[in-house]
C-alpha cells in the first residue's frame, strides 16, 4: 500500500457523525413507511390479533366465580369435590355483583356442558330467595339444583377457569376434553366443524384445478397470439376482474336461476327437468372459477411470454415428440407461474364468503360462513376466533409457500 502524502496529524475522527448521518437517511426513509405501518397495525393487524387472541382467552368464569375457581384449583378428577368449593360457589353466587358477568360465565360454561347456563342461573335465583343461615353448603346447593352432585359440573368450571383455554380450538376441530382432561374426537355424526373445513378445502382445490384446466390453455393462447389478439384477450380477462364481485355473483345467479337464461334454453330444448341449477356445488364452483381465473391467467401469461419459442423448436428438432417437448421443456419453464397462480387461487378460495352464501346450498358453507355465523347469530366470539385461527393458519402456510417460490412478498399478478 502506498500513501501519496504523509497521513495528516490532525486525522479527523468523525466516523460517528457519518454513521449517524447514514442512520438518519435510513430513518427518514422509514418515516415514510411508518404512517402506513402504524395505520395498518392499529386499524387492521391489531384487531385481527385481538380476535385471534380470543380463541384462547378464557376469563369470564374466573371473573364471575373467583372463589370457586380458587377452591377447585387443587381438585383432581376422581376425588370428591372439596367442601370449600361448595362454600365458595355459594359465596360467589350470592355476591355476584354484576349479573352480566355471571351471565357471560354461564354462557361460557354452557358451551362446554349444555345445561350449565340454566343450572347456574337457577341456583343463583333460588339462593337469593333462600335464607343464608346454613353451614352445609353442599346440601344447600344440591337441594337447589341436583346437578351440583355430579362432578361433571365442577369439572366444567375447573376447565374453564382460565386464563387461557384450548376449548375453542378443540371444538373447532370437533374435539373435546372429557371431565378427566383427556382429549377425544367427537363421533362423526356429531362432528360440526370438520365437514365445513373439508368443504372449504374441497371447493378451493376443485376451483384451483378448474382454473389450471381452463387458465393454462387460455394463457398459452394469449402468449402465442399476436399483440393485438393478446390485448383483446387480456381485456376479456381484466374486465370481469375489475367488475364488482357482487355484480358477477348476481350475473351467475340470474343465469343459473330457475328462470335463468341457461335454464330456459335447456328446457326449450327439452333437455332439462325444471331442476334448480342454483344452490349447489356446481354453481359455487363455476362462479368461483369465473371470479378467480384471472389470478391464474395473469401470472401464467407473464411467465409464458418469457419462454423462448427457440427452445421448443430446438427440442422438436432434436426429435422430441410434442408431448415430450411440453413435459420436459415447456412445463418446467412455466412452473413458477403455475405455482404462483395456483397458490393465489387457492388462497382466495379459502376466504370466500359471499359466493357460497348467495349461490350455494347448505353443503357449500365453509369456514368463512361459519365464522360470520358465530359472530352474528350466537355471539360465540371464542369459537369464531378459533375457526379464524384455523383458516388463517392455512392461508399463511400457503402464503409462506408463495413467498418462498416467488421470492417476493407482494401478491402482484406479474407484468401486465
Amino acid at each position, binding site marked *: *500500500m*502506498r500513501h*501519496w502524502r504523509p*497521513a*495528516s496529524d490532525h*486525522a479527523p475522527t*468523525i*466516523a460517528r*457523525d457519518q454513521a449517524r448521518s447514514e442512520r438518519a437517511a435510513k430513518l427518514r426513509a422509514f418515516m415514510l413507511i411508518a404512517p402506513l405501518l402504524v395505520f395498518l397495525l392499529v386499524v387492521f393487524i391489531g384487531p385481527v390479533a385481538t380476535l385471534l387472541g380470543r380463541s384462547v382467552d378464557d376469563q369470564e368464569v374466573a371473573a364471575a366465580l373467583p372463589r370457586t375457581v380458587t377452591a377447585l384449583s387443587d381438585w383432581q378428577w376422581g376425588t370428591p369435590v372439596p367442601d370449600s368449593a361448595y362454600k365458595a360457589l355459594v359465596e360467589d353466587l350470592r355476591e355476584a355483583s354484576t349479573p352480566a358477568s355471571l351471565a357471560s360465565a354461564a354462557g361460557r360454561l354452557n358451551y362446554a356442558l349444555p345445561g350449565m347456563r340454566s343450572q347456574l342461573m337457577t341456583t343463583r335465583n333460588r339462593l337469593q330467595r333462600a335464607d343464608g343461615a346454613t353451614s352445609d353448603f353442599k346440601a344447600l346447593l344440591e337441594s337447589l339444583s341436583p346437578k351440583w352432585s355430579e362432578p361433571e359440573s365442577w369439572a366444567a368450571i375447573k376447565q374453564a377457569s382460565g386464563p387461557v383455554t384450548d376449548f375453542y380450538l378443540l371444538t373447532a376441530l370437533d374435539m373435546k376434553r372429557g371431565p378427566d382432561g383427556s382429549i377425544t374426537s367427537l363421533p362423526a355424526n356429531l362432528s360440526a366443524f370438520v365437514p365445513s373445513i373439508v368443504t372449504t378445502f374441497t371447493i378451493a382445490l376443485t376451483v384451483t384445478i378448474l382454473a389450471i384446466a381452463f387458465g393454462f390453455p387460455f394463457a398459452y393462447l394469449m402468449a402465442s397470439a399476436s399483440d393485438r389478439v393478446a390485448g383483446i384477450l387480456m381485456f376479456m380477462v381484466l374486465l370481469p376482474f375489475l367488475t364488482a364481485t357482487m355484480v358477477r355473483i348476481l350475473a351467475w345467479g340470474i343465469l343459473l336461476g330457475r328462470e335463468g337464461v341457461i335454464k330456459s334454453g335447456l328446457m326449450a330444448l327439452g333437455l332439462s327437468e325444471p331442476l334448480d341449477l342454483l344452490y349447489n356445488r356446481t354453481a359455487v364452483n363455476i362462479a368461483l372459477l369465473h371470479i378467480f381465473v384471472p389470478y391464474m391467467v395473469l401470472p401464467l401469461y407473464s411467465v409464458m411470454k418469457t419462454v423462448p419459442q427457440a427452445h421448443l423448436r430446438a427440442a422438436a428438432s432434436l426429435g422430441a415428440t410434442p408431448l415430450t417437448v411440453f413435459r420436459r421443456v415447456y412445463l418446467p419453464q412455466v412452473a413458477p407461474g403455475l405455482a404462483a397462480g395456483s397458490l393465489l387461487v387457492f388462497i382466495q378460495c379459502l376466504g370466500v364468503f359471499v359466493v357460497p352464501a348467495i349461490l350455494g346450498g347448505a353443503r357449500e358453507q365453509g369456514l368463512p360462513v361459519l365464522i360470520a355465523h358465530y359472530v352474528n347469530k350466537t355471539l360465540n366470539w371464542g369459537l369464531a376466533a378459533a375457526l379464524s385461527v384455523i383458516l388463517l393458519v392455512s392461508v399463511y402456510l400457503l402464503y409462506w409457500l408463495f413467498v418462498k417460490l416467488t421470492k417476493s412478498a407482494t401478491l402482484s399478478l406479474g407484468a401486465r
Partner: protein
Amino acid sequence: MAPIVEFKNISKSYDGQSFVINNLNLDVQHGEFLTLLGPSGSGKTTALMMLAGFEAPTNGEIFVEGRPYSSLPPHKRDIGVVFQSYALFPHMTVGDNIAFPLQVRGHAAQDIGRKVAAALDMVRLPGVASRKPSELSGGQQQRVALARALVYEPKIVLMDEPLGALDRQLREEMQMEIKSIHARVGVTFVYVTHDQGEALTMSDRVAIFRRGVIEQIADPQTLYDRPGNAFVATFIGDSNLLTGRILGRDASRTMLEIPGAGTIAASAGDIGDGNANDAYVAIRPERILVSRSRTEDVGRNELSGTIDKTIFFGDHLKLVIRLEGGQLLQVKTETAQPFQQGQAVSASWSPEDCIAFTSPPANTRDGVVQSLKNTVAA
C-alpha cells in the same frame, strides 16, 4: 494555493469487513482536470460518490475549500455531477432540464433564459431547448447533461464515466469537446473512467486506483514514461514485462539477468531494498529497435531472438520476438520493415526506457502479462 478538495484518510466499507476505499489521501488542485482511472471495482466511483455526497465515508474526512464536507447533504454542496446514464429528467424539455438548477437557486426568469441559451451554445447545441431529452442522440444528451452541470457555475464538476455509453468515434469527439470546455470555464473537473486512453488524452493529472488505494498519481507523461510500479506499467499503455534476476545496482542503474538471453541495465523503479532475487522489467513496445544483426552499441541493452509472429495493424506492424531463453517480446515497428517469421533478429533499447520492479503486477486488466508469464513457464 491550497487544494480545493482534500480526501484525508478516507475509508469506505459497505459490510464492515472489506474496504472499497482504504485510507485514501488525495488532493485536487484548483482548476485542474483530475482523472480517477482504474479497473471496475477499484474504488474510483465510490470516491467520486463520496465527494458528491451520495455516499458517506466510513472513516476520515473530505474537505472542500478547507471545510469538512462529509456530513453536508448533497444538495448543499454546490458540486455539479454528470452521470454515465446522463440522468436527464425525461418529463422536462432540454431547456427546463438546464433551467432546473437555476430555478432551484431562485434566479430571475429572464436571467435563466439567457443562461440556458448560453449553456446550450457552449456545448454547441443551440436551438434544442424545447425538445425532450428522448428526442436527442446519446452524444447530444451527454452535452445537455454537461451544460446542466455547468450552468450554475459550481465549484467542482464531477463526471462518472460520462462517455461510457457512446460509440468510439463519438467518444473521441466528446473527449476533445470536454477538454476544450474545461479550458474555457476553468472549473475544477474530477473525471472517472476505466479507459486509459481517455484519461491520458484529457487530464492534467491521473490517479490510478486499484483495490481501494491509489497506485500512482501523476501527469500522463510521467505515468507513461516512469510508471511507479509494475501494475501501472502494464495498466497504462502496452508494456512488455520480462522476468529476470537482479545482479546488482548502483545509484541510477539496476543490472539484471534475463535467463538464457543475457544481461541488461534498467532504471530502478519500485525495487525495494535492492538485491531481491526476482524482478520484472517493463519496456514499451515502441521503444525497442529491431535489427537483423547485433548493433553492439554499449550504451543500449541488446538481446537476441527469432521472429515468432508478425501482425499487421495498418499504421504499424507488431513483431513478437522469442528471445533466447524463451520469453516473448512485443515490438511496434514501421510497416516498411521487412521481417519474416523465423528470422533471427536482435532487439535493443535504452536503459532509460526500461524500469525494473520487484512487486508483481498481479491481476492486470488483460492477458498480456499473463501470457508472457505462461511462456516463461513453458
